[in-house]
């Protein structure tokens, strides 16, 4: 289990324990994180699971994959340098404590 924090635009923090191997879109759905819908089930078709990694927590998620990168250029909430689609982030020990800002 790792700990994941989601941060809303008002600064409020929502924390959950996530089993390793589970992607962070599914984790967000299981924990009812606002604005994350994962409509396509993680098929990288909908871009409704966009998050911004808050690197001030000291944890980086790495670069997006090629197709994800293309999608991120077009997300409605606007891309930032640390934008990722959370369906492509899989819970692993390296991501323990990661902070994800959600936008809407």
């Amino acid at each position, binding site marked *: 289990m790792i700990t994941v924090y989601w941060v809303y635009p008002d600064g409020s923090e929502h924390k959950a324990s996530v089993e390793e191997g589970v992607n962070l879109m599914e984790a967000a759905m299981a924990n009812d994180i606002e604005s994350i819908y994962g409509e*396509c*089930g993680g098929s990288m078709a909908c871009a409704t699971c966009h998050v911004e990694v808050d690197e001030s927590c000291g944890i980086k998620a790495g670069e997006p994959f090629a197709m994800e990168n293309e999608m991120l250029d077009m997300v409605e909430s606007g891309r930032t340098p640390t934008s990722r689609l959370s369906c492509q982030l899989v819970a692993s020990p390296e991501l323990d404590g990661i902070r994800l800002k959600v936008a809407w």
Partner: protein
Amino acid sequence: MKNEFDVVIIGAGHAGAHLVNVLVRKKYTGSVALISDEMFQPYHRPPLSKEYLKTEQVDSRPLLTGGALSSPNISFMPGCRVAGGDLQAGSLTLTNGTELGFKQLVLATGASPRKLAIEGAGLEGIVSLKTLADAEKIREALFQTKELVLVGGGFINLELACSLAGEGRTITVLEQTPRLLQRAVSPVMSEFLKTEAEKLGVRILLNEEVSRFEGDGKRISHVVTAAGERFEAGLAVVAIGSVPESGLAEDLGLECTNGIVVNGQLQAAPNVYALGDCVFFPDPSASHSLRLESVQNATDQANYVAEALTGSAQEEYHAIPWFWSVQGANRLQIAGLAKPGTRQVISGEPADANFAVYHYLGEQLCAVETINRPGEHMLARKMLKENFSPTEAEVVQGVEAIKAALASRESKNV
């Protein structure tokens, strides 16, 4: 005793389940019953023709959020079917005899695979793919046979063919028309998808009508075409389109024509909504109604009905249709609806497995198909939403030229 609910949703596919998710997210406090004729928690259906069959892992992907599963005002009722009801009285009777009362009713009954009514259709080993139980049947059959015949060259069978290719299997797709996905994609795309499936070792035969199934009296052994050819088959998957599940709606006295007829607010009658694959709804951009079978349609209509149920006044339902299909390593995405008779402009090379097909009616962009260009697909959705049609020159120049043209128009409109 009668169980009273504010909202009863019949059907727990993408439309019904997403509606519950959105109601929970909106902090809806009314009582909601979600009725499913399956025994499972609602799950994502697209993986069933793809990774679900490829992996050892048998977990399905849940559709309901944690909150939807745990909210005390949401009653999930698995393994239930509605036998009938009375819209005026606001009551339903389940096949197990349970009576339910509702203030608002939502029909999300979906669509079911069209059946092939030919000789031998009742043999074991002939399946269609809609539910987790169907996918399980296919998975079990794969342990017993390497001879697969897929009847129908549409999305489901092409996805299946590409997912299951290899491992010593013989996979044959029999399509009745002269090309694959004839009603859904351009000829260029049909040809590309055929070539790509063939590269994986899938045999695709066009203009082949299936006339009967043969077996040993119990299990299928061959699929026989009208031309008299016999194909060995330990498993036959029939995927020749879907028909809307509108029987219950008809019994309730609702109008049905190619699905449940609704108005621009997705209402079939006062306090009765219908959404998803089972709905024949007005297309605001045209003078006719249409029925769409897609996750996007289910989800967007569920979003709309959630707004309606929680009391927000709204304009008529309008959304840009989009689809996706993953076939082997290729990701096909379609934004908009490619109508017959469009002029097509191609950007990129099919041979590179990286291209787009733009469909125009006159000068108006109406649909864009992309292969392995998810960014351009998102851009296409934006263009269609903003009613922007790039020129042919811009399309051929590529995404940056289109974005520039779109931005220039946006700045003029401010």
